[in-house]
């Protein structure tokens, strides 16, 4: 370690690591955000979304990225500073990947104002930077491998609700700005709505008990009854998911001019993908 030869060897390996790690982060950012990068309603958000909502959306991304870095992230982190650094790296990767892809898709044009261009890029940079954060660890190999994974399984109750928020936000983002959310809500009658609520709860519970069983097998959790799981995780998780759905729809201005019953129906519609993402996050992310 102290000898000059091993240091130069490390430095040499460092260059390769940069390419591999950043490449991985870029790949992950694009993999997770290409559906919305290729959605025109998302491009329109660049000029349709009010600056206030865009600001809140960007600021919301920071604590989400910090938390994700702790539970997941592209390398194992041990101090708050590590998480802060990873957050900014993820944002860098997210915003540059978005700018590049939108440019390549011909979305960004020279006759557009900077308001419009920066709006279009910064809206999508949030999802892309979350995507970058999902890139699996490479640097923290050896005996430290999987610190984040272990942490995820052992996550506290609040930690699990946090992962629910991230998963719900992430999966709902890809469909939330589309016209179909409102259209589906209009197409559904009350029985359909009720059925969708029950289905969402059912699927969420399936994911949650699968994650719980995995944690129990690895000795990271004590055995819990299904009813307790349902009450503490599925029902509370669904409430969190609906709140996230409402926030996302509000951000995209989809609820504007709607009465409360129609708003609730649309929130329930978006709550389906959000619920899938929220409950599967502990297993997948």
């Amino acid at each position, binding site marked *: 370690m102290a000898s000059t030869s091993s240091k130069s060897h490390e430095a040499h390996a460092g260059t390769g690591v940069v390419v591999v790690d950043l490449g991985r982060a870029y790949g992950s950012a694009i993999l997770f955000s290409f559906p919305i990068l290729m959605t025109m309603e998302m491009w329109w958000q660049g000029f349709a979304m009010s600056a206030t909502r865009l600001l809140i959306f960007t600021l919301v991304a920071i604590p989400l990225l910090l938390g994700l870095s702790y539970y997941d992230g592209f390398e194992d982190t041990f101090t708050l500073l590590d998480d802060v650094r990873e957050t900014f790296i993820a944002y*860098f990767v997210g915003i540059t990947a978005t700018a590049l892809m939108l440019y390549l898709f011909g979305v960004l044009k020279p006759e557009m104002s900077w308001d419009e261009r920066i709006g279009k890029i910064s809206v999508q940079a949030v999802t892309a930077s979350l995507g970058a954060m999902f890139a699996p660890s490479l640097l923290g190999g050896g005996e430290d491998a999987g610190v984040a994974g272990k942490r995820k399984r052992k996550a506290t109750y609040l930690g699990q609700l946090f992962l629910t928020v991230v998963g719900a936000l992430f999966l709902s983002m890809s469909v939330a700005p589309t016209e179909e959310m409102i259209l589906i809500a209009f197409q559904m009658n009350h029985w359909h709505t009720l059925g969708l609520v029950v289905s969402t709860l059912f699927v969420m519970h399936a994911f949650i008990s699968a994650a719980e069983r995995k944690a129990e097998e690895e000795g990271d959790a004590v055995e819990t009854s299904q009813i307790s799981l349902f009450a503490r995780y599925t029902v509370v998780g669904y409430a969190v998911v609906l709140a996230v759905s409402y926030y996302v729809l509000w951000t995209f201005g989809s609820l504007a001019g709607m009465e409360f019953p129609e708003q609730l129906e649309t929130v329930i519609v978006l709550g389906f993908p959000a619920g899938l993402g929220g409950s599967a996050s502990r297993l997948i992310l």
Partner: protein
Amino acid sequence: MATKKSTSARRHHDIPVWEWVVAAIGALLLIAVVAFTIYRIGEARDPAAFTIEVESVVETGGGYLANLRITNTGDETAAGLTLEGKLMQGGEEAETSTATLTYVPANSARDAAMVFTKDPRTMKLEIRPLGFEKP
């Protein structure tokens, strides 16, 4: 978050410089986006207003194509903007045509074209916006 068990062989001095550099650029970009967005919140908001320029006229099989550039000089976006173009000859209306633009965002320009059967180069072409939706 700060009370993590330090089981790592990687300490601070082991973290490659590039990570700090990339993180610093990322932080700057984030601050720039936030600052720009805050600046936009404070901006005065003028309603959508349009300047329409005829960029060129091309003869096509079906007639004449007047290529237009529409610039929205206001701070509000216009959706479904309809334009009406009249060819005037000696004070008389010789031909009318329309064009619709899906979006003309604030402070941005969009291109469109109008089709005429008569040559707009030989007459006076008057184009005006008819109406739009506020998205």
